[in-house]
Structures are given as structure tokens and as C-alpha cells.
């Protein structure tokens, strides 16, 4: 009875602009799943302020112009409270421009661009820690594992990877890590054998991979072919499909993460999410789905804090927000530019059970404040 009455109010709508087609359709769809799960649960829990909380999902076709158009239509046609959704960073940045110019609150679930929260940002909030920070964390992790380690870098010519590498290169000297090989792949590379050979020749302790999509798996396999040990390979992050893609031979390899079903900090609700998601999709969720699942809760919390569905009030509530991820208990708060308090896990793959799941154990956890490193000098 209680929920029924609660939802009597007229609905609050939040726009979700994400990649349901085009090159990023995989992440967009995964993200949509996460959002929809949360939407259902929130509805079941009685919505927010006694009003239903709806998420209107629009396909941006992995195309900036489309994304901007979508933002515009959500803004002016559906008059949404806020927008969220993109998983591809340049798409997110396109929407960012619109959001900041038109004063539409924008909650970015999975996009690691520091630019999304550059100084002066007012309406945008980034849930995922930024890429430069990933690099920083990697350096910290490697130093903790093996003082004075020799590190090889392999990365694609994409902004995300360049940002990560910038972070590593900034922190490495401080941790006296020596970078023995630094290999950039043009976009559309097919083969990494030669580069792998170059890496082998440089005799590193660790190889840090910031490559994308299928090429990431190819590169990994070719490193292993040339005799690099799984334990020496560090993937920038691990999503379920790639971790399974690496296959049994790369058990022991390391990857960065922000949420993992195998972590022991996963809450009851977290486990419920993991189970339901696995049920529905046939694959355990990774940090991507997790961020997308948590985002509606962040929105909900902010609305409750604001006590109304007014954009300005909502925005203020967001920046003053102080909560924990319902799935993992990791704290969530944003600085004045909307950057989330940074944190990162490093996990080690201990087993794979394709196509459904894998097991892994935590090696390392670190938290730090966004201002710890000069992010915006490192990436323009």
C-alpha cells in the first residue's frame, strides 16, 4: 500500500544518453542494463519524494552530434531533471559541453576523462575516477609490489590511454620505477608481435597494457606467446568480457578495477545485483555495470537531499553529496568541480569460467584526493 501511494506523485525523469549502436554498443548496452536494474529497484522501494523516478534511455549511436541532439531533445522535449549515460569519453565530453552551456545537471557514470571535471565545471559530476589517476595508482601499486621495478608500457593512440600513461610517467620517477619501453599503437593496429618482441628484449618486470577492445586480447596473447609471464601483465582495467577473453592461459595476470564481484566488500544489495545481472545477461557484472547501477541511486540521494526536482537545487545537492555505493560501501563524494574522490583496486585473475564468470583476488587498494596530482597540467 505504502509504495502505491508513494508513487502517486507525477514522475521525475532523468535522461540516459548512451551507446546502443555503433562501436561502443557493448558498453552502452551493459550500462543500460545497470540503470534499468536500479530503476526497477527504486520503483519497488517507492520512488523518490513519493514520486516515480524514470530513466529515459536514448541511443547516441556513438556519435557526438547525435549525443548533443539527444541531450537537446531530453532537455527541451522531456524536460528532464538531469542527464547521464555515455560510456565513451568523447561522447561524454560532447554532452558535457551542452550540459554546462544549458545548465543541465550531468552525471557521468563511466568516462574517465579529467576534462569532464576541469576547474570551473559546474553542472557535471564524474562517478568514475579519472584516467590520470589510474596511472598514478598503477605506479603506486607497482612500487608496492617490487621496489625499483622495470616497467614496459604498451598503449593505443587514444586519449584514455594517453592520460593513463601521463599519470604513470608523472608518478614513476617518484616511486623510482624505470620505464624500459614505451610503445604506442596507431588506431586500427592488428598485431602486437613485434612490439611484444621489443618488450621481451627490454626485460621488464611488468608490462602495463592500455590497449582497447579485441586488440587488448590479441596483445595479451602475443605477449604470452613470447614468454612474458601472466603475473607480469597489468591491464589498465578489467571488464568481464575481456578478462574471460584473455582465457585460462592468462590466469595470474593483474588488472585495475573499481568494483569486482569477487571482492569481499560487496554488500548484500551488491550480491543481489550481481546475481540478478548474471541471471539476465549470462555474465557477472564488472565495474562498468556497477557504476551504471549506482548512478540512479546517486541521483535519488541527491533529489532527496535537494527535496525537490529543481535543477539548481539538485546540482547543489550533488556537490554536497556524501554517501556510499549501495553495492560496495565505497564512499561517494564530489569536489567543487564534480570530480569524485579517487580510489582504485588492483586485482589478480585466479580463474576463468567462460562465458559466465571468473575469480580474482584483491592485491591492492588505494584512495586519494583528486588534487593529489596536477591532473589538468598532465592532460590539456
Amino acid at each position: 500500500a505504502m509504495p502505491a501511494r508513494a508513487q502517486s506523485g507525477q514522475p521525475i525523469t532523468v535522461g540516459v544518453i548512451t551507446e546502443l549502436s555503433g562501436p561502443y554498443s557493448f558498453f552502452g548496452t551493459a550500462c543500460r542494463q545497470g540503470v534499468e536494474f536500479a530503476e526497477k529497484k527504486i520503483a519497488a522501494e517507492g520512488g523518490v519524494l513519493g514520486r516515480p523516478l524514470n530513466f529515459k534511455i536514448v541511443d547516441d549511436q556513438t556519435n557526438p552530434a547525435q549525443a548533443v541532439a539527444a541531450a537537446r531533445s531530453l532537455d527541451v522535449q522531456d524536460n528532464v531533471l538531469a542527464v547521464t549515460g555515455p560510456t565513451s569519453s568523447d561522447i561524454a565530453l560532447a554532452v558535457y559541453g551542452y550540459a554546462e552551456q544549458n545548465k543541465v545537471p550531468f552525471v557521468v557514470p563511466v568516462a574517465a576523462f579529467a576534462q569532464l571535471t576541469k576547474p570551473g565545471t559546474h553542472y557535471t559530476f564524474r562517478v568514475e575516477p579519472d584516467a590520470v589517476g589510474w596511472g598514478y595508482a598503477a605506479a603506486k601499486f607497482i612500487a608496492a609490489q617490487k621496489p625499483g621495478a622495470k616497467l614496459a608500457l604498451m598503449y593505443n593512440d587514444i586519449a584514455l590511454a594517453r592520460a593513463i600513461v601521463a599519470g604513470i610517467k608523472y608518478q614513476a620517477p617518484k616511486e623510482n620505477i624505470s620505464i624500459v619501453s614505451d610503445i604506442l599503437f596507431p588506431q586500427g593496429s592488428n598485431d602486437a608481435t613485434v612490439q611484444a618482441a621489443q618488450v621481451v628484449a627490454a626485460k621488464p618486470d611488468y608490462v602495463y597494457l592500455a590497449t582497447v577492445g579485441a586488440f587488448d586480447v590479441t596483445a595479451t596473447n602475443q605477449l604470452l606467446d613470447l614468454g612474458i609471464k601472466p603475473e607480469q601483465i597489468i591491464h589498465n582495467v578489467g571488464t568481464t568480457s575481456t578478462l574471460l577473453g584473455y582465457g585460462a592461459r592468462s590466469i595470474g595476470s593483474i588488472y585495475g578495477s573499481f568494483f569486482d564481484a569477487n571482492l569481499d566488500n560487496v554488500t548484500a544489495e551488491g550480491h543481489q545485483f550481481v546475481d540478478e545481472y548474471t541471471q539476465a545477461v549470462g555474465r557477472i557484472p564488472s565495474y562498468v555495470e556497477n557504476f551504471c547501477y549506482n548512478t540512479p541511486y546517486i541521483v535519488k540521494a541527491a533529489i532527496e537531499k535537494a527535496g525537490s526536482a529543481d535543477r539548481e537545487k539538485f546540482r547543489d545537492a550533488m556537490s554536497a553529496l556524501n554517501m556510499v555505493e549501495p553495492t560496495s560501501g565505497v564512499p561517494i563524494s564530489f569536489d567543487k568541480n564534480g570530480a569524485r574522490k579517487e580510489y582504485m583496486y588492483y586485482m589478480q585473475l585466479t580463474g576463468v569460467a567462460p562465458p559466465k564468470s571468473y575469480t580474482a583476488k584483491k592485491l591492492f587498494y588505494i584512495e586519494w584526493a583528486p588534487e593529489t596530482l596536477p591532473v589538468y597540467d598532465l592532460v590539456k
Partner: protein
Amino acid sequence: MRRLLHTAFKPQLFLLLAAGLLLTIVVRENRFFAFVAGITMISIMWAAGMNLLTGYAGLVSLAFAGIAGISAYTTVGLVMRLGWSFWLAMPVAALGAAAVGVLLGLPSLRLKGFYFALSSLVIQTVLSLGFVYFVNLTNGDTGISQIPPPDIPFTGAVLRGTSFDLLLTFAAWFSLVAVWAIVHSPFGRRLIAIREDEVLAEAIGIDVVRNKMLVFFVGSLFAGVGGALYATYVGFASPRSFDLLSSLSIWLMVAFGGRGTLMGPVVGALILAPVPFLLQQYDTLKDVIYGALIIAVIVLLPGGIYGALVSFARSLPLLRRLSTPYKKSVPHDRSVHGA
């Protein structure tokens, strides 16, 4: 120039302008449709330029979007970094892009027919790689966001909302006027002559090299101006906005509407440009519908939609003057041209 003014006052072109303005006014209340209309106007402009190259000069250049991109990035750079006025930056950028366009057109001097098209496809990929690679100029695949709309000189105000839409409508209309003027000028005739038979063209005193370079310059100007407007209108520019797919879709508007006719590309743009926006809800079917649409048209009306309309159009005096009829080439393999 005189000719241009002269053309601008042709009643039928005025009618077009009126129609365009009307559309802009009608949709102005709904900013979403207004935005889609705006993009369509830019597409019309691009299609017009592409048509000049493809339809009249017979030079299929699939590096078109790349050239638009060069102009866009230059404009943005000049405006956002050097603080130039858009109205100074845009022409400079467009001219620069046009110069590059001429450069990239050089292969067409040796490569005949569709062969040039295929090589331009490769050129486009190189440009795309470039946009990603020269991070400090283009901000790589991150793209550049918060691009300010054009300023209104000496007022400190900026051009936004409906006034910007109106500007785009004018731009689109003007590009049609320009194409019209060119096609009906000696230059236009030379282009057609070159398209039909280069050797004969030279034998009757037409400087093939010079005219080809010229048309690449003019065509690229359309690309450039369009690019500058696009970036400022969308407020964002990234390599994805100016990639091979963009080139192809512009070219498709021309082929779809009808090559070598003034109105064909307009029709093409009016139909194809809005499709992806209006189908945003149908993410699973969108591409299939788009593809099927293209195939259906080319199968049913090989001359493009407008090509099919022309015969009918001839019966209407107004359209007749608007249409340089679609010409089909002789059914002979040596003319279906290749290397």
C-alpha cells in the same frame, strides 16, 4: 560576382529561401527539431559542394568531411586560443581548407573516374588518423567541447538560438545560389566538358588541370564553411564528426538525391540528414532502415530521387528552370570509368 547577385534574385531561388526560412520559423519553438533542421541546412550546404565536385566535375571526393574537419579545427583553434572573431576565423580557415582540398585533389589529375574516389577514401582515413594524432591541435579523439557560438561583431553578444538557425538557412540557400551561378557560368560548362571527355575538352582549349584545381578549391570552400558552422553549431568537434562515414553520408545524399542536378542533393539531404536523429528511439532498426532506404532508392530510381522527378518536373515551369536534367552516361564499359 555580378552573376551571383543576378542569380540570387531569380524568383525560383527566392522561393527556396522562403521555404527554408518558413521551416526554420515553424520549428523554432522546439529546440530539438530546430537543431535537426540546422544540421540539415549544413548538410544541404555540404551536399551542394559535394555535388559540384561529384555531379558536375565527375570527381568523387570521399575526403570531403576530412577537409571540413580541417576547417572546423582551424576555426575553433583561432577562436578559442587566439581569440579571433568567428567572422575572421571562418573565412581564413575555409580558405586554408580549400587550399588543402586542392592539394588532395592532385591525384585526380592522373587517376581517372572512380579510381580517384577510392584513393580519396584512403586520403580521408589519413586525415582521420591525423585528427587523432595531432593532439595539441585537435585534442585528439577526446574532441573539443564548449565551442562558443559565433559572436555578433562589435556587440559582444553571441549568435545563438533561432538567429543561428536563420544564419544556417541563409548559408544553405546561398550555397545553392553559388552552385547555380557556377553551373550556369563558363566555368560550369568547362567542368561538365571535363567530366564528359577530358581529351576532347583539352582539344577545344579547356585547361583541364587548372579547372580541376579550381573546382576542388570551390568545392572545398563549401566543405570548409560548412565545417566551421558545424563545429560552432554543435558546440563540439571530434575526429568522429569528420570521419569516412561522414564523407560517405554526404556523398550518399548527392547520389541518393541525384547527381548533377541543383535540387537533387537538396532532396537527398532533406531526407537522409534527419533520419538518424528522428530514429534515435529505434536504435535496433535505425541502421537497417537507413541502409534499406538507400538500396531501395538506387534500385528503383537509379538516377536518384530527383533524377526520377525531373521528367515530371519538366512539366512544371518553375521546377524546370531549377533542374539541369539528370544525364545518364552511355552504356559502355569503357565509360563506366576506372583506371
